[in-house]
Protein backbone atom coordinates (compact mmCIF):
# COMPACT_ATOMS: atom_id res chain seq x y z
CA UNK A 1 0.00 0.00 0.00
CA UNK A 2 1.14 3.52 -0.81
CA UNK A 3 1.70 5.68 2.27
CA UNK A 4 1.89 9.43 1.88
CA UNK A 5 2.92 11.74 4.69
CA UNK A 6 1.81 15.29 5.32
CA UNK A 7 4.34 17.45 7.16
CA UNK A 8 2.28 18.33 10.25
CA UNK A 9 4.25 21.10 11.93
CA UNK A 10 1.67 23.77 11.09
CA UNK A 11 -0.97 24.49 8.45
CA UNK A 12 -3.77 22.81 6.50
CA UNK A 13 -2.87 19.20 7.35
CA UNK A 14 -6.34 17.69 7.82
CA UNK A 15 -7.50 18.66 4.31
CA UNK A 16 -4.52 16.95 2.67
CA UNK A 17 -5.09 13.82 4.75
CA UNK A 18 -8.71 13.72 3.55
CA UNK A 19 -7.66 14.18 -0.12
CA UNK A 20 -4.97 11.48 0.08
CA UNK A 21 -7.43 9.03 1.59
CA UNK A 22 -10.03 9.94 -1.05
CA UNK A 23 -7.42 8.90 -3.65
CA UNK A 24 -7.10 5.47 -2.05
CA UNK A 25 -3.68 5.87 -0.40
CA UNK A 26 -2.79 5.74 3.28
CA UNK A 27 -2.15 9.13 4.89
CA UNK A 28 0.12 9.89 7.85
CA UNK A 29 0.68 13.09 9.81
CA UNK A 30 4.45 13.55 10.02
CA UNK A 31 5.60 15.29 13.19
CA UNK A 32 8.93 13.51 13.80
CA UNK A 33 11.88 12.84 11.51
CA UNK A 34 11.79 9.05 12.10
CA UNK A 35 8.38 8.93 10.42
CA UNK A 36 9.99 9.74 7.06
CA UNK A 37 11.12 6.09 7.00
CA UNK A 38 7.50 4.90 6.94
CA UNK A 39 6.31 6.93 3.95
CA UNK A 40 6.73 6.79 0.16
CA UNK A 41 6.10 10.46 -0.57
CA UNK A 42 5.41 13.66 1.34
CA UNK A 43 3.21 16.73 1.01
CA UNK A 44 4.39 20.06 2.40
CA UNK A 45 1.07 21.77 3.12
CA UNK A 46 -0.07 25.38 3.04
CA UNK A 47 0.48 27.49 6.13
CA UNK A 48 3.05 30.09 7.06
CA UNK A 49 6.43 29.31 5.48
CA UNK A 50 8.38 31.30 8.11
CA UNK A 51 6.72 29.34 10.94
CA UNK A 52 7.26 26.00 9.20
CA UNK A 53 10.91 26.75 8.50
CA UNK A 54 11.54 27.56 12.16
CA UNK A 55 9.94 24.27 13.21
CA UNK A 56 11.74 22.35 10.43
CA UNK A 57 15.03 23.59 11.88
CA UNK A 58 14.06 22.95 15.51
CA UNK A 59 13.25 19.31 14.87
CA UNK A 60 15.97 18.27 12.45
CA UNK A 61 13.75 18.09 9.37
CA UNK A 62 15.97 20.29 7.21
CA UNK A 63 18.59 17.79 6.06
CA UNK A 64 16.17 14.86 6.49
CA UNK A 65 13.72 16.32 3.96
CA UNK A 66 16.52 17.11 1.50
CA UNK A 67 17.77 13.54 1.84
CA UNK A 68 14.21 12.21 1.39
CA UNK A 69 14.09 14.00 -1.96
CA UNK A 70 17.61 12.87 -2.95
CA UNK A 71 16.49 9.26 -2.52
CA UNK A 72 14.01 9.88 -5.35
CA UNK A 73 10.95 9.99 -3.12
CA UNK A 74 8.30 12.42 -4.40
CA UNK A 75 7.62 15.73 -2.65
CA UNK A 76 4.59 17.94 -3.32
CA UNK A 77 4.43 21.49 -1.96
CA UNK A 78 1.29 23.63 -1.90
CA UNK A 79 1.52 27.40 -1.35
CA UNK A 80 3.90 27.68 1.65
CA UNK A 81 5.18 24.24 0.61
CA UNK A 82 6.08 25.63 -2.84
CA UNK A 83 8.10 28.39 -1.12
CA UNK A 84 9.92 25.78 0.98
CA UNK A 85 10.86 23.84 -2.18
CA UNK A 86 12.24 26.77 -4.21
CA UNK A 87 15.96 27.35 -4.75
CA UNK A 88 15.56 31.13 -4.59
CA UNK A 89 13.11 33.51 -2.88
CA UNK A 90 12.67 37.02 -4.22
CA UNK A 91 14.00 39.63 -1.79
CA UNK A 92 15.50 37.11 0.64
CA UNK A 93 19.14 36.09 0.96
CA UNK A 94 18.41 32.48 1.81
CA UNK A 95 16.03 29.93 0.36
CA UNK A 96 14.73 26.91 2.31
CA UNK A 97 14.98 23.30 1.02
CA UNK A 98 15.99 24.26 -2.51
CA UNK A 99 14.57 21.11 -4.10
CA UNK A 100 13.36 22.77 -7.30
CA UNK A 101 15.32 25.07 -9.58
CA UNK A 102 13.03 28.09 -9.48
CA UNK A 103 12.78 31.59 -8.06
CA UNK A 104 9.54 32.40 -6.25
CA UNK A 105 7.87 35.53 -4.86
CA UNK A 106 5.95 35.36 -1.56
CA UNK A 107 2.46 36.91 -1.13
CA UNK A 108 2.86 37.77 -4.79
CA UNK A 109 -0.80 38.39 -5.58
CA UNK A 110 -1.16 40.75 -2.59
CA UNK A 111 -2.67 40.58 0.87
CA UNK A 112 -5.70 38.52 1.96
CA UNK A 113 -8.29 40.86 0.37
CA UNK A 114 -6.70 39.94 -2.99
CA UNK A 115 -6.98 36.16 -2.37
CA UNK A 116 -9.12 34.54 -5.08
CA UNK A 117 -10.53 31.46 -6.80
CA UNK A 118 -10.13 30.85 -10.53
CA UNK A 119 -10.62 27.98 -12.99
CA UNK A 120 -7.34 26.79 -14.49
CA UNK A 121 -6.13 24.35 -17.08
CA UNK A 122 -3.38 22.21 -15.51
CA UNK A 123 -1.15 19.88 -17.61
CA UNK A 124 -1.46 16.17 -16.68
CA UNK A 125 -4.55 17.07 -14.62
CA UNK A 126 -7.12 18.53 -17.01
CA UNK A 127 -9.11 21.74 -17.38
CA UNK A 128 -11.65 23.64 -15.25
CA UNK A 129 -9.67 23.01 -12.10
CA UNK A 130 -11.05 25.32 -9.40
CA UNK A 131 -7.86 26.73 -7.89
CA UNK A 132 -7.97 28.51 -4.52
CA UNK A 133 -5.22 31.12 -4.04
CA UNK A 134 -4.68 32.42 -0.50
CA UNK A 135 -2.00 35.10 -0.05
CA UNK A 136 -0.40 32.98 -2.69
CA UNK A 137 3.13 33.00 -4.07
CA UNK A 138 4.01 32.39 -7.72
CA UNK A 139 7.07 31.27 -9.63
CA UNK A 140 9.02 34.17 -11.15
CA UNK A 141 11.63 32.13 -13.03
CA UNK A 142 12.03 28.41 -13.61
CA UNK A 143 15.09 26.48 -14.78
CA UNK A 144 15.05 24.44 -18.04
CA UNK A 145 14.46 21.17 -16.15
CA UNK A 146 11.22 22.55 -14.64
CA UNK A 147 8.00 21.72 -16.49
CA UNK A 148 5.37 24.44 -16.21
CA UNK A 149 1.95 22.89 -15.54
CA UNK A 150 -0.25 25.94 -15.17
CA UNK A 151 -0.21 29.70 -15.43
CA UNK A 152 -2.64 32.37 -14.28
CA UNK A 153 -2.39 35.77 -16.00
CA UNK A 154 1.00 34.66 -17.39
CA UNK A 155 2.36 33.79 -13.93
CA UNK A 156 3.54 30.28 -13.21
CA UNK A 157 1.32 28.70 -10.53
CA UNK A 158 2.02 24.97 -10.91
CA UNK A 159 5.24 23.17 -11.88
CA UNK A 160 6.99 19.83 -11.86
CA UNK A 161 10.66 18.83 -11.83
CA UNK A 162 11.17 15.07 -11.95
CA UNK A 163 9.65 13.69 -8.75
CA UNK A 164 8.94 17.16 -7.34
CA UNK A 165 5.54 18.84 -7.76
CA UNK A 166 4.33 22.24 -6.57
CA UNK A 167 1.26 24.46 -6.79
CA UNK A 168 0.78 28.06 -5.63
CA UNK A 169 -2.91 27.22 -5.02
CA UNK A 170 -4.61 24.83 -2.58
CA UNK A 171 -5.99 21.70 -4.28
CA UNK A 172 -6.79 20.30 -0.82
CA UNK A 173 -9.48 22.93 -0.18
CA UNK A 174 -11.93 21.61 -2.76
CA UNK A 175 -13.45 18.18 -3.39
CA UNK A 176 -11.71 17.97 -6.77
CA UNK A 177 -8.90 15.53 -5.96
CA UNK A 178 -7.26 15.43 -9.41
CA UNK A 179 -4.00 17.12 -8.42
CA UNK A 180 -3.51 14.91 -5.36
CA UNK A 181 -4.42 11.88 -7.49
CA UNK A 182 -1.64 12.87 -9.90
CA UNK A 183 0.81 13.06 -7.00
CA UNK A 184 -0.29 9.59 -5.90
CA UNK A 185 0.59 8.26 -9.39
CA UNK A 186 4.00 9.96 -9.10
CA UNK A 187 4.58 8.15 -5.79
CA UNK A 188 3.43 4.88 -7.37
CA UNK A 189 5.90 5.33 -10.25
CA UNK A 190 8.79 6.10 -7.88
CA UNK A 191 8.06 2.95 -5.88
CA UNK A 192 8.14 0.83 -9.06
CA UNK A 193 11.40 2.48 -10.12
CA UNK A 194 13.14 1.68 -6.84
CA UNK A 195 11.58 -1.79 -6.34
Amino acid at each position, binding site marked *: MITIGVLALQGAVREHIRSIEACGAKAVEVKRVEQLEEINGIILPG*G*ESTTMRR*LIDSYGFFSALKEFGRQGKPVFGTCAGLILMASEIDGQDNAHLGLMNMKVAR*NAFGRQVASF*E*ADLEVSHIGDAFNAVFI*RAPYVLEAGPEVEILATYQDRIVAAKQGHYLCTAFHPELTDDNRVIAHFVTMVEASMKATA
Partner: protein
Amino acid sequence: MSNTGTERVKRGMAEMQKGGVIMDVVNAEQAKIAEAAGAVAVMALERVPSDIRAAGGVARMADPTITEDVLNAVSIPVMAKARIGHIVEARVLEAMGVDYIDESEVLTPADDIYHLNKSDYTVPFVCGCRNLGEAARRIGEGASMLRTKGEPGTGNIVEAVRHMREVQSEIRKLSAMSKDEVMTFAKVIGAPFELLLQIREEGRLPVVNFAAGGIATPSDAALMMELGADGVFVGSGIFKSDNPEKFAKAIVEATTHYQDYALISELSKGLGTAMKGLEMSTIAAHDRMQDRSE
Protein backbone atom coordinates in the same frame (compact mmCIF):
# COMPACT_ATOMS: atom_id res chain seq x y z
CA MET B 1 -13.13 34.60 -14.23
CA SER B 2 -11.60 35.06 -10.80
CA ASN B 3 -13.47 35.75 -7.54
CA THR B 4 -12.17 37.45 -4.40
CA GLY B 5 -13.72 37.39 -0.92
CA THR B 6 -15.46 34.04 -1.41
CA GLU B 7 -16.38 31.90 1.57
CA ARG B 8 -13.76 29.35 0.53
CA VAL B 9 -10.99 31.95 0.30
CA LYS B 10 -11.96 33.52 3.65
CA ARG B 11 -12.33 30.26 5.57
CA GLY B 12 -9.30 28.79 3.79
CA MET B 13 -7.11 31.62 5.07
CA ALA B 14 -7.97 30.52 8.65
CA GLU B 15 -7.31 26.87 7.75
CA MET B 16 -3.73 27.86 6.86
CA GLN B 17 -3.24 29.21 10.39
CA LYS B 18 -4.03 25.87 12.03
CA GLY B 19 -1.61 24.50 14.59
CA GLY B 20 -0.16 27.98 14.91
CA VAL B 21 0.06 30.83 17.38
CA ILE B 22 -1.30 34.32 16.73
CA MET B 23 0.34 36.94 18.92
CA ASP B 24 -0.86 40.35 20.13
CA VAL B 25 1.63 43.13 19.34
CA VAL B 26 1.53 46.88 19.89
CA ASN B 27 4.37 47.99 17.60
CA ALA B 28 6.63 46.97 14.70
CA GLU B 29 9.42 45.80 17.00
CA GLN B 30 7.17 43.34 18.84
CA ALA B 31 5.73 42.18 15.50
CA LYS B 32 9.24 41.29 14.30
CA ILE B 33 9.97 39.36 17.51
CA ALA B 34 6.71 37.46 17.05
CA GLU B 35 7.49 36.64 13.40
CA ALA B 36 11.02 35.47 14.24
CA ALA B 37 9.64 33.27 17.03
CA GLY B 38 7.38 31.50 14.53
CA ALA B 39 3.99 33.22 14.97
CA VAL B 40 1.59 32.44 12.09
CA ALA B 41 0.08 35.93 12.36
CA VAL B 42 0.11 38.98 14.59
CA MET B 43 -2.76 41.01 16.00
CA ALA B 44 -1.96 44.72 15.85
CA LEU B 45 -3.31 46.59 18.87
CA GLU B 46 -2.87 49.88 20.67
CA ARG B 47 -2.79 48.09 24.03
CA VAL B 48 -2.80 44.42 25.02
CA PRO B 49 -5.95 43.28 26.88
CA SER B 50 -4.42 43.41 30.37
CA ASP B 51 -3.52 47.08 29.80
CA ILE B 52 -6.98 47.79 28.36
CA ARG B 53 -8.43 46.26 31.52
CA ALA B 54 -6.13 48.35 33.72
CA ALA B 55 -6.72 51.58 31.80
CA GLY B 56 -10.52 51.35 31.84
CA GLY B 57 -12.60 53.77 29.76
CA VAL B 58 -13.64 53.12 26.16
CA ALA B 59 -11.32 50.89 24.10
CA ARG B 60 -11.45 51.50 20.33
CA MET B 61 -9.76 50.40 17.11
CA ALA B 62 -6.00 51.11 17.25
CA ASP B 63 -4.49 54.26 15.75
CA PRO B 64 -4.00 53.37 12.05
CA THR B 65 -0.34 54.38 12.36
CA ILE B 66 0.30 51.37 14.62
CA THR B 67 -1.53 48.99 12.29
CA GLU B 68 0.29 50.40 9.27
CA ASP B 69 3.70 50.07 10.97
CA VAL B 70 2.97 46.43 11.77
CA LEU B 71 1.70 45.76 8.22
CA ASN B 72 4.99 47.11 6.88
CA ALA B 73 7.20 45.30 9.40
CA VAL B 74 6.30 41.64 8.78
CA SER B 75 5.51 39.24 5.94
CA ILE B 76 3.10 37.07 7.98
CA PRO B 77 -0.61 37.98 8.06
CA VAL B 78 -1.69 40.94 10.18
CA MET B 79 -4.99 40.97 12.05
CA ALA B 80 -6.60 43.94 13.82
CA LYS B 81 -9.55 44.48 16.13
CA ALA B 82 -12.71 46.46 15.42
CA ARG B 83 -15.44 47.16 17.98
CA ILE B 84 -18.47 44.88 17.83
CA GLY B 85 -20.95 46.31 15.34
CA HIS B 86 -18.68 49.18 14.28
CA ILE B 87 -19.17 49.14 10.52
CA VAL B 88 -16.78 52.01 9.88
CA GLU B 89 -13.87 50.74 11.97
CA ALA B 90 -14.21 47.44 10.09
CA ARG B 91 -14.31 49.16 6.69
CA VAL B 92 -11.28 51.29 7.63
CA LEU B 93 -9.28 48.19 8.56
CA GLU B 94 -10.38 46.48 5.34
CA ALA B 95 -9.29 49.53 3.33
CA MET B 96 -5.88 49.48 5.06
CA GLY B 97 -5.39 45.92 3.82
CA VAL B 98 -5.35 44.02 7.12
CA ASP B 99 -5.62 40.28 6.48
CA TYR B 100 -8.21 39.43 9.15
CA ILE B 101 -10.49 41.50 11.40
CA ASP B 102 -11.31 40.45 14.94
CA GLU B 103 -14.78 41.75 15.82
CA SER B 104 -13.78 41.74 19.44
CA GLU B 105 -15.34 41.99 22.88
CA VAL B 106 -11.91 43.13 24.13
CA LEU B 107 -12.84 46.54 22.73
CA THR B 108 -15.91 48.38 24.03
CA PRO B 109 -18.87 47.36 21.83
CA ALA B 110 -20.20 50.05 19.48
CA ASP B 111 -23.52 48.23 19.13
CA ASP B 112 -24.98 46.41 22.11
CA ILE B 113 -27.51 44.43 20.04
CA TYR B 114 -26.18 43.67 16.57
CA HIS B 115 -22.91 42.26 15.29
CA LEU B 116 -21.54 43.13 11.85
CA ASN B 117 -22.97 41.38 8.81
CA LYS B 118 -19.57 39.95 8.01
CA SER B 119 -20.67 38.30 4.75
CA ASP B 120 -20.67 41.79 3.18
CA TYR B 121 -16.91 42.17 3.43
CA THR B 122 -14.03 40.94 1.28
CA VAL B 123 -11.77 40.70 4.34
CA PRO B 124 -12.46 37.69 6.60
CA PHE B 125 -13.50 37.98 10.26
CA VAL B 126 -12.79 36.10 13.47
CA CYS B 127 -15.24 36.31 16.39
CA GLY B 128 -15.35 35.03 19.96
CA CYS B 129 -17.76 32.38 21.24
CA ARG B 130 -18.58 30.73 24.56
CA ASN B 131 -20.97 28.06 23.32
CA LEU B 132 -22.39 26.50 20.17
CA GLY B 133 -25.28 28.97 19.90
CA GLU B 134 -22.91 31.91 19.88
CA ALA B 135 -20.55 30.12 17.46
CA ALA B 136 -23.40 29.37 15.06
CA ARG B 137 -24.78 32.93 15.19
CA ARG B 138 -21.36 34.35 14.32
CA ILE B 139 -20.92 31.87 11.46
CA GLY B 140 -24.44 32.78 10.32
CA GLU B 141 -23.35 36.45 10.18
CA GLY B 142 -20.36 35.45 8.08
CA ALA B 143 -17.47 34.88 10.51
CA SER B 144 -14.80 32.73 8.79
CA MET B 145 -12.97 31.81 11.98
CA LEU B 146 -13.89 31.48 15.64
CA ARG B 147 -12.03 31.65 18.91
CA THR B 148 -13.05 31.09 22.50
CA LYS B 149 -13.68 34.32 24.33
CA GLY B 150 -12.02 33.22 27.53
CA GLU B 151 -11.55 36.18 29.83
CA PRO B 152 -9.00 38.40 28.06
CA GLY B 153 -6.10 40.00 29.87
CA THR B 154 -6.39 37.82 32.97
CA GLY B 155 -3.69 35.22 32.37
CA ASN B 156 -6.27 32.79 33.74
CA ILE B 157 -7.11 29.86 31.46
CA VAL B 158 -10.28 28.72 33.21
CA GLU B 159 -12.76 30.61 31.03
CA ALA B 160 -11.13 29.56 27.73
CA VAL B 161 -11.25 25.95 28.93
CA ARG B 162 -14.92 26.30 29.82
CA HIS B 163 -15.77 27.81 26.41
CA MET B 164 -13.83 25.23 24.41
CA ARG B 165 -15.37 22.34 26.36
CA GLU B 166 -18.85 23.82 26.06
CA VAL B 167 -18.66 24.12 22.26
CA GLN B 168 -17.21 20.60 21.87
CA SER B 169 -19.74 19.07 24.23
CA GLU B 170 -22.68 20.71 22.46
CA ILE B 171 -21.38 19.49 19.08
CA ARG B 172 -21.22 15.93 20.45
CA LYS B 173 -24.75 16.29 21.83
CA LEU B 174 -25.99 17.60 18.46
CA SER B 175 -24.27 14.78 16.55
CA ALA B 176 -26.13 12.22 18.65
CA MET B 177 -29.53 13.88 18.15
CA SER B 178 -32.20 12.56 15.87
CA LYS B 179 -33.11 15.02 13.12
CA ASP B 180 -36.50 15.79 14.65
CA GLU B 181 -34.83 17.16 17.78
CA VAL B 182 -32.66 19.69 15.93
CA MET B 183 -35.24 22.45 15.38
CA THR B 184 -36.07 22.67 19.08
CA PHE B 185 -32.36 22.59 19.94
CA ALA B 186 -31.87 25.45 17.43
CA LYS B 187 -34.61 27.42 19.19
CA VAL B 188 -33.15 26.80 22.65
CA ILE B 189 -29.58 27.81 21.79
CA GLY B 190 -30.60 30.52 19.30
CA ALA B 191 -28.73 29.04 16.36
CA PRO B 192 -29.55 28.88 12.63
CA PHE B 193 -31.27 25.54 11.92
CA GLU B 194 -29.61 24.79 8.55
CA LEU B 195 -26.17 25.40 10.02
CA LEU B 196 -26.87 23.02 12.91
CA LEU B 197 -27.90 20.33 10.41
CA GLN B 198 -24.56 20.77 8.66
CA ILE B 199 -22.60 20.65 11.94
CA ARG B 200 -24.55 17.56 12.98
CA GLU B 201 -23.71 15.87 9.67
CA GLU B 202 -19.98 16.67 9.78
CA GLY B 203 -19.49 16.39 13.54
CA ARG B 204 -17.58 19.66 13.60
CA LEU B 205 -17.84 23.39 12.96
CA PRO B 206 -17.45 24.50 9.31
CA VAL B 207 -14.71 26.96 10.36
CA VAL B 208 -11.66 26.65 12.60
CA ASN B 209 -11.98 27.40 16.32
CA PHE B 210 -8.88 28.78 18.07
CA ALA B 211 -8.32 29.23 21.79
CA ALA B 212 -8.05 32.74 23.19
CA GLY B 213 -8.37 34.64 26.43
CA GLY B 214 -6.08 33.83 29.34
CA ILE B 215 -3.29 31.72 27.82
CA ALA B 216 -0.18 32.51 29.89
CA THR B 217 2.22 29.53 29.62
CA PRO B 218 3.35 26.91 27.05
CA SER B 219 1.36 24.33 29.04
CA ASP B 220 -1.77 26.48 28.75
CA ALA B 221 -1.36 26.55 24.96
CA ALA B 222 -0.84 22.76 24.86
CA LEU B 223 -3.87 22.24 27.11
CA MET B 224 -6.10 24.14 24.69
CA MET B 225 -4.78 22.06 21.75
CA GLU B 226 -5.45 18.91 23.77
CA LEU B 227 -9.05 20.08 24.24
CA GLY B 228 -9.48 20.40 20.49
CA ALA B 229 -8.46 23.97 19.66
CA ASP B 230 -7.20 24.42 16.08
CA GLY B 231 -4.55 26.90 17.25
CA VAL B 232 -4.09 29.62 19.85
CA PHE B 233 -4.16 33.39 20.28
CA VAL B 234 -1.81 34.73 22.92
CA GLY B 235 -2.54 38.26 24.03
CA SER B 236 -0.99 39.75 27.11
CA GLY B 237 0.92 36.54 27.93
CA ILE B 238 3.95 37.10 25.70
CA PHE B 239 4.96 40.73 25.93
CA LYS B 240 3.98 40.94 29.62
CA SER B 241 6.41 38.12 30.47
CA ASP B 242 10.03 38.58 31.54
CA ASN B 243 11.59 37.24 28.35
CA PRO B 244 9.15 37.70 25.43
CA GLU B 245 11.43 36.21 22.77
CA LYS B 246 12.06 32.96 24.60
CA PHE B 247 8.49 32.83 25.79
CA ALA B 248 7.08 33.28 22.27
CA LYS B 249 9.27 30.46 20.87
CA ALA B 250 8.26 28.16 23.72
CA ILE B 251 4.54 28.78 23.11
CA VAL B 252 4.95 28.08 19.37
CA GLU B 253 6.72 24.76 19.97
CA ALA B 254 4.33 23.67 22.72
CA THR B 255 1.41 24.31 20.35
CA THR B 256 2.92 22.17 17.57
CA HIS B 257 4.00 19.35 19.87
CA TYR B 258 1.22 19.59 22.42
CA GLN B 259 1.39 15.92 23.37
CA ASP B 260 5.18 15.78 23.74
CA TYR B 261 5.30 16.34 27.49
CA ALA B 262 9.05 15.89 27.90
CA LEU B 263 9.54 18.64 25.33
CA ILE B 264 7.03 20.96 27.03
CA SER B 265 8.89 20.45 30.29
CA GLU B 266 12.15 21.50 28.58
CA LEU B 267 10.47 24.50 26.96
CA SER B 268 9.01 25.64 30.27
CA LYS B 269 12.36 25.80 32.07
CA GLY B 270 13.73 29.19 33.03
CA LEU B 271 11.10 31.25 31.25
CA GLY B 272 11.00 33.70 34.12
CA THR B 273 7.77 34.85 35.69
CA ALA B 274 4.62 34.56 33.60
CA MET B 275 2.13 37.42 33.85
CA LYS B 276 0.63 37.74 37.30
CA GLY B 277 -2.96 37.01 36.34
CA LEU B 278 -6.37 37.53 37.89
CA GLU B 279 -8.65 35.15 39.73
CA MET B 280 -12.18 35.20 38.26
CA SER B 281 -14.02 35.93 41.52
CA THR B 282 -12.06 39.18 41.89
CA ILE B 283 -13.43 40.54 38.59
CA ALA B 284 -16.67 42.50 38.95
CA ALA B 285 -19.55 41.51 36.67
CA HIS B 286 -19.32 44.77 34.68
CA ASP B 287 -15.59 44.15 34.04
CA ARG B 288 -16.15 40.74 32.41
CA MET B 289 -15.35 41.26 28.73
CA GLN B 290 -16.84 37.92 27.66
CA ASP B 291 -20.34 39.09 28.68
CA ARG B 292 -20.26 42.14 26.43
CA SER B 293 -21.98 40.35 23.54
CA GLU B 294 -23.80 37.13 22.87
